[in-house]
């Protein structure tokens, strides 16, 4: 799924993949790095909540009369994709990967919110809400890196 005339359905599926990948990634991190276990499990849970919000809002507001087929024209989903290989060699690298994942997600949900403005109002609101959740998570990960005295690459 790359650049092109994306449908709302394709965007929702992408969101599902993104949140599922995120949940899986943080669960694996929680398993691998006990020092961040609590935070990572909380992030994984949030990913489930994020998907629940997006899917419920879409199901409750989708309308064939609005521009669901044409609103996301030009979005390039490759720009928002997480790294294919999310395995990390250590805690610091895992945090750096998490940071990139959250940054990509914030970009995706912010752009999707803007494009969804022709839908019923709740859809852009849901995208914005998840973007905010992701941004808050990005800041927490950044703080974990800062505490370790690690700079970004």
């Amino acid at each position, binding site marked *: 799924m790359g650049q092109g005339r994306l449908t709302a359905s394709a965007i929702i599926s992408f969101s599902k993949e993104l949140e599922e990948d995120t949940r899986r990634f943080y669960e694996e991190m929680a398993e691998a790095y006990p020092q961040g276990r609590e935070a990572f499990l909380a992030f994984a849970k949030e990913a489930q909540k994020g998907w629940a919000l997006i899917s419920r809002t879409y199901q409750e507001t989708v309308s*064939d009369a609005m521009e*669901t087929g044409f609103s996301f024209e030009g979005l390039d989903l490759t720009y928002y994709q997480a790294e294919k290989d999310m395995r990390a060699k250590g805690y610091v690298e895992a945090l750096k990967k998490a940071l990139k994942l959250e940054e990509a997600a914030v970009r995706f949900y912010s752009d999707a919110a803007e494009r969804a403005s022709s839908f019923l109002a709740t859809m852009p609101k849901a995208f914005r809400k998840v973007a905010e959740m992701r941004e808050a998570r990005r800041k927490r990960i950044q703080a974990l890196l800062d505490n370790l005295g690690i700079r970004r690459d």
Partner: protein
Amino acid sequence: MKLLEEPIREVLTLRNYIDGEWRDSQGKLLEVVNPATCKVIAKVPLSTEEELKAAVEAANEAFPDWRRTPPLARARCLFRLKELMEARFEELSRIQTMEHGKTIDESRGETRRGIENVEVATGIPSLMMGYNLEDVASGIDEYVIRQPLGVFGIIAPFNFPFMVPLWFAPYAVATGNCVVIKPSPHCPISQVKLAELVEEAGFPRGVWNVVHGDGTIASYMLDHPGIKGICFVGSTPVGKEIYRRCGERGKRVIAQCGAKNFLLVMPDADLERTIASCLTSFFGNTGQRCLSGANLVVVGEGQADSEYKAFYRKFVDAFVDSASKIRVGYGLDESVQMGPLQNKGRKERVLGFIEKGLEEGATLRLDGRNVRLVGDWPHTCFLNPTVFEDVEPDMVIGKEEIFGPVAGIMKARSLEEALEMIHGNPYGNAAAIFTSRGKWAREFQYRVQCGNVGINIGIPAPMAFFPFSGMKESFFGTLHGQGQEAIRFFTESKVVIQRWF
């Protein structure tokens, strides 16, 4: 792009749902074909007159108990139905794509709109209330009670196989009536799946019945004395006939019919958003809906000739370019923006109109006969978007309903001229204006003789709590489907005047 999973994996043999039971029909079986893949997905019976009579009889037998069931209890059946519909939302939507061909977003939109009608009907304890006035004369009070009538027939179209019966049935049963639904024989599966949920929701037997068939069964419904009224959505000639025959037999009618909808683009319209809205309007549901755009009128109100020429060219070129990029294919592919026509015959009918447009001298800017698909599907039912320029209101393609992905572009130098074009057409279902100026929008809304009006909205589809309107040759009847008007349609107003000596 991989396909979403198909919920129908083997050929279904459909049965009638009569008196709370699934009954085999004695009628001949027709094949139901997925128009994208051309695979048979079900067999549907053309039921017999006896089977219809059994359904009407069951409904009439169920009526006395059902009407005495407290409205709150009836509403609770609808609440349970809504919950089941939500739980099966995705399956219901994918079935629509498989039997009709529409894209998955469109199908989900249809499912949502169907559910919204159930939601509105759950408010029946409030919606069905009458009204009263004390002391209309000395010591005399007067009040209105709304009472159900009995059994209603619902004759459904192919283009919204799930949603359209839900413009009527939830209100009919909420008010204490019973229904017999005849789905389209081309797209009957959605109503079977819905009836399965009705059964699961615990509606008493006989309240909700489904009898498959074609026009012959519909005709029996019109004549059956046990049916008090008919709700129909379909073509104008059939709607007129239904209206006439029901009139002769004293039945109530809602007949929502054909359309030729005009979309006006004013010089100050937001180009990008107008085009997205027009694409949805003209090519959404592959142009097979009564709210689809048909004629796109570029209006040069207040512009000098040179300005108008430039505006017209800029808009039309952008529209044609966007239409040419629409991705056509199987609706279960999420990258697809337009599906096939519902069957081969419908495609041939549209091809006939394209030929006619060429004969009449319209300019074919985008030829959808050059089929280009996403995915390797048989071309049998597919067309790509087609755009004609230089269409005149008196051309066949300018005045008759095509019911396919064909846009006719017209020119008007003023809003007045554009309104004359609309009013010269016999239909009055929908019309829309795209503008940033309130004055033009207000003028349009005030004067246009159409039932559903869009202001910067390409598909002015009324939400469930508003009536689905329609005027002129697009509607026959008095009250419309959905919302409060449906409540009035399905009830008698009994007026009581009382005094106590």
